């Protein structure tokens, strides 16, 4: 136990320190700053988020391989870098979406940005967790901040309802996760992912009932965080009730962090191999999550609820990628599982950008006093706000998986890995083909409601006049996101390779 802080540790923790310091600084500015003008807090928040992101990029570039800190409790490897860069990019966009939104609805305060920053710090902790305690700490830090953010607009009933539902169900899920961790610790005698990896590879622990129950409880707890059916009940209410800019952050960043926890714990630590009992449950979760999410989204009449159910369906696709990795890990040379996990990271990154963009357009079309959240209200908006109409069309195409958008390659990589895995000697090809068929059919169902939105935007008689308003920062963010979604739809290789490098050593 050496209490001396090494220089490299300080460097590795730099993004976390920047986030925490900016959060505290924003809190203090909120109370010491002058009363009325809150706008500069938003711009300071943008600066803080960008500098944390730059620090993360610096770490990614300089620390190529894996470095561990605090006796292995924190790992800064390529996986942590990918998730960290993703989270901070989402944070920057979430702050950009928030500045105008909060001003438009007169709810701008420093606490909002501070909570966003603390949530992002929790996500970075999740990304580089080296054992279960650090993972739990990160999940709690991000969850507690998001519970409060969901209820941030406390003068509206829906926001309070979203917060209390998310909090009650979320703390229950945390307890389940913690109980699972305790069982795993009791049976395996360790909480470190590295030690659990060698224990699970031996195969003997999978004969131990209490250990398997612990693994299932952990799976349930994390499945709640990523909103997998049947742990998804909170999602539509939380996404609908939370302030729209918070919804954007939840759908992009919380999902990425949740799946980071899932990938770190299951494929990367428990692995595949003989008798790895987490794989079949994840297959089942994936199949029902994408199907239920898509079928429920078909009947929604509220835009935010529609995107909430759509996010559940997308969680199902990503779960399918994780399931594919589990099914082929340890069989053949493992290339298909690396492809599947790289596909998972690529999917999460592009889905997050697309979701942020889509919610950004929802913010663009909302007005003070009336957020225009029903499908009927959107009738004819495509003609009244042509730029926003084109932007949301791009995002909906990406969500539906139509080229030349990023969403096409996201689905392509997942399907390719699934088919590739079915050809691997010894892999359960029947299960893999089932997953592939479900992904394909569900993409088809999903087009039903994505195209419905476009029909409302362009082929319905307008119900109301869209009053002009000034939302410059959101507009910039949406333009950037359109560009990114199109760019990744044309040149997906670099991002995919970055994701692939996170799993180079995985067999």
């Amino acid at each position, binding site marked *: 136990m050496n209490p001396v802080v090494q220089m490299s540790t300080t460097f590795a923790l730099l993004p976390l320190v920047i986030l925490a310091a900016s959060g*505290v600084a924003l*809190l*203090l500015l909120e*109370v*010491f700053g002058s009363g009325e003008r809150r706008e500069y807090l938003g711009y300071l928040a943008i600066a803080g988020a960008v500098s944390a992101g730059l620090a993360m990029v610096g770490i990614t570039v300089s620390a190529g391989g894996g470095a561990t800190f605090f006796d292995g409790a924190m790992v800064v490897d390529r996986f942590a870098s990918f998730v960290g860069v993703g989270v901070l990019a989402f944070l920057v966009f979430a702050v950009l979406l928030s500045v105008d939104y909060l001003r438009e609805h007169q709810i701008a305060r420093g606490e909002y940005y501070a909570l966003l920053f603390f949530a992002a710090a929790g996500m970075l902790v999740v990304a580089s967790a080296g054992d279960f305690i650090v993972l739990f700490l990160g999940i709690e830090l991000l969850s507690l901040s998001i519970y409060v953010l969901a209820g941030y607009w406390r003068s509206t009933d829906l926001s309070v309802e979203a917060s209390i539902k998310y909090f009650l169900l979320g703390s229950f899920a945390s307890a389940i996760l913690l109980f699972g961790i305790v069982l795993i610790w009791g049976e395996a005698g360790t909480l470190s992912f590295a030690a659990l990896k060698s224990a699970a590879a031996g195969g003997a622990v999978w004969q131990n*009932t209490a250990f398997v129950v612990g693994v299932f409880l952990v799976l349930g707890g994390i499945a709640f965080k990523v909103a997998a059916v049947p742990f998804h009940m909170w999602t539509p209410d939380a996404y609908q009730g939370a302030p729209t800019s918070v919804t954007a952050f939840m759908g992009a960043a919380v999902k990425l962090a949740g799946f980071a926890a899932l990938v770190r714990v299951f494929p990367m630590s428990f692995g595949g191999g003989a008798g790895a009992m987490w794989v079949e449950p994840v297959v089942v979760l994936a199949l029902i999550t994408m199907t239920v999410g898509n079928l429920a989204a078909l009947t929604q009449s509220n835009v935010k609820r529609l995107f909430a159910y759509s996010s559940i369906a997308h969680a199902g696709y990503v779960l399918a990628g994780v399931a594919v990795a589990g099914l082929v890990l340890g069989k053949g040379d493992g290339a298909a599982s690396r492809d599947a996990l790289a596909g998972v990271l690529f999917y999460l990154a592009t889905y997050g950008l697309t979701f942020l963009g889509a919610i950004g357009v929802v913010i663009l079309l909302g007005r003070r006093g009336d957020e225009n959240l029903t499908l009927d209200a959107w009738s004819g908006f495509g003609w009244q706000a042509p730029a926003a109409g084109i932007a949301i069309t791009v995002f909906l195409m990406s969500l539906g998986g139509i080229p030349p958008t990023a969403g096409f390659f996201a689905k392509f990589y997942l399907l390719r890995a699934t088919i590739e895995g079915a050809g691997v000697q010894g892999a359960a090809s029947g299960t893999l083909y089932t997953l592939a068929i479900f992904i394909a059919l569900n993409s088809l169902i999903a087009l039903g409601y994505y195209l419905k939105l476009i029909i409302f935007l362009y082929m319905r008689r307008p119900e109301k006049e869209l009053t002009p308003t000034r939302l410059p920062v959101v507009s910039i963010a949406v333009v950037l996101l359109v560009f990114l979604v199109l760019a990744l739809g044309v040149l997906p290789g670099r991002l995919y390779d970055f994701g692939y490098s996170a799993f180079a050593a995985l067999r």
Partner: protein
Amino acid sequence: MLSSYLPVLLMIVAGIAVAGGMLALKSLLGPRNATPEKQKPFECGRESTGSAHARFSIKFYLVALLFIAFDIEIVFLYPWAVVAKGLGVVGLVQMGVFLGVLVLGFIYVWKKGALEWD
């Protein structure tokens, strides 16, 4: 494998036996003379007044939460104080950072007016 859980089962049985036994002994051995006063809810020995389901001001919860938040932080000082000599200056600086963040939180709470009753 299941036999290794036998101590847990014994623990549960012993727990039920002790708790249940005490309740049983109480009703078997204890004297019973119920007077109207003894049937009343206990209120510090005074006559009970009003309903127990009164509404409290939300401020009580705020003060209680703040108290717990700052009280729990003090718990972290004890283990540090025990080994403070061994940790030396580095430990002192790290504790200073910890307390510094805490003080910033305190300043925030104070300026926000959460400590004012009205």
